[in-house]
């Protein structure tokens, strides 16, 4: 019998997974920011800094975050927004699709954010 234990907080696990994925995580103003490069859309091939709040990654990887924080320059044709703790940024409401299927949750999360950024104009 083996048990795969959660050995750190959700924040620590999330940050470690971002580091392992080469996403250059940084913790500032209650936000974990990291880099994602979309492959489609207006921002294709441009490295974009994005983030999620510390509070939202507390349950990682059991539950994913909901709000995706981005600089105000990143615009979408339709979006639900709220303020971000980082000046010059705003949070976009986005549901992730299937969750709990991927072997590596961070892979699923980064694919989700990449997909969202693919819709930027």
């Amino acid at each position: 019998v083996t048990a795969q234990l959660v050995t750190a907080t959700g924040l620590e696990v999330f940050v470690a997974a971002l580091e392992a994925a080469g996403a250059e995580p940084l913790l500032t103003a209650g936000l974990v920011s990291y880099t994602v490069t979309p492959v489609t859309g207006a921002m294709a091939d441009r490295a974009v800094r994005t983030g999620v709040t510390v509070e939202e990654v507390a349950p990682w990887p059991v539950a994913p975050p909901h709000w995706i924080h981005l600089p105000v320059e990143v615009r979408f044709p339709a979006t639900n927004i709220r303020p971000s703790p980082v000046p010059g940024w705003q949070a976009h409401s986005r549901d992730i699709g299937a969750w709990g299927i991927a072997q590596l949750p961070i892979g699923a999360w980064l694919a989700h954010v990449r997909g969202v950024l693919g819709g930027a104009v």
Partner: protein
Amino acid sequence: VNRFAVAMTTDLDTEARRHLLRADGQEDVCLATYAPSSGAIRTSAILNMLVLPGAGERSVHGNASFAGQYVVRAASEAAARGLGVALLHSHPGGGGWQGMSSIDEQTERSYARVAETITGLPLVGMTIAGDRTWSARSWTAVRGHGDAESVRVVGSVLRVSWNDRLRPAPRTTAAQVRTVSAWGEAMQADLTRLRVLVVGVGTVGLDLAIRLVQAGIQQVAIMDFDTVEILNLDRLITATRLDAALLRSKVYVALRGMRAAATARMPELQGYELSVCEPAGLRAALDYDLVFSCVDRPWPRAVLNQIAFSDLIPVVDGGLAIEPFQGGGMRNATWRAHVITPGRPCLQCNGQIAGAQVARDRAGLFDDETYIRTAGLKLPARENVSLLAPSVTASMLAQFVSLAVAPGGLGVPDGLRYSVSTHTLEHIPAETQRGCAYENALGSGDRRAELTATHPSAAEARERRAAGAQRPRVRTGRLAQRLIETASAAAGRLWVP
């Protein structure tokens, strides 16, 4: 009160028995790691891995003994993962909850300090008797040992070893004769000692809680932060217009109904006006052996789904889905029930909760109408029918009986779903996803991911109720209601032997 209990999966129990209950009848020993699970008044040790002895790490000589380096190795492995260590040994000729011989006590005492020093957690000592009954105690170097009240083995069947001294079997009452005749005194003694929590005492939960106390279960608790409203009265059994007018909590109404229905000689009923998504709600839930999930929102179901695996507290979950036609009439209604327990897929793997919905609910957006409208989503379904809800209750209680009584020795089935339109009962097979974070955190106890948070809706409901209770009309009404209820209970005690 500071209670202590131990829990393990059926798989770990099987592996431990294979090692400890030898074919040659000699005693044997081994070690295990555990994670603490801290409830409000009970701490549990959740065994999560056996550390079997290597060559020269234990000797078997009729009795059996641990080598010091074995305990140090296991404790070091445990400490590296933030876990505690348990010493397990067998009494193959024994039956029932075991006491310790002087040698047992001396051995465990001598390793208590070593284990505590290396892991920072108390040593847990455990004995398995030849009849598969476990007994357990927790050791600290300073205070010595304290006995566990129970050891539960959790899988498709829930099997609990009881410490009769700390948790004596409640005496059967005359009102329980027919119930006992269904499964016998021994099973009744096991069932009625379970600490059972019903989360959500709406249509289904209130009905369930009353059924559980009627069956003689001595300790049934309920958790709900909500207030009785007029629109609940078409299906909330025992609730009255007066309860709604007096802003009574659902917990108040449920406890009143449960007190009236309880058949145990000394029922111990508890109500929590909390959400299980709040840290205090989760801590309270960790004090129980089994939970009924009667909530329909993703966040509380996710919390319960989590503790089914991290803290080995089986969760009986169920629900009703109604599909009305837009212009009136009913297309279909279905109800389903399933037990969330190790060996069965979790609520996410069986499709009952989705990560995105849990995140949205946790963010306070699940029934935010402005958000839902602007996001182009559908409002959560609100249809409910009193005439169908008892079927959900029945379906969940049948799953409970399969889990705790295991008729035919079979334990719980897959999820079961009944369709009203086609009159069909289906088994709903589901498989665990390899990346499932709930099931992969099996036995993690307090090291579970932090799903709980402040819950503004629960806080607001409690504040609104407290403010309403200050109104003179409500205060007077509550006082009169309380007097009548107290007088009624006193009359009952006077006239009924």
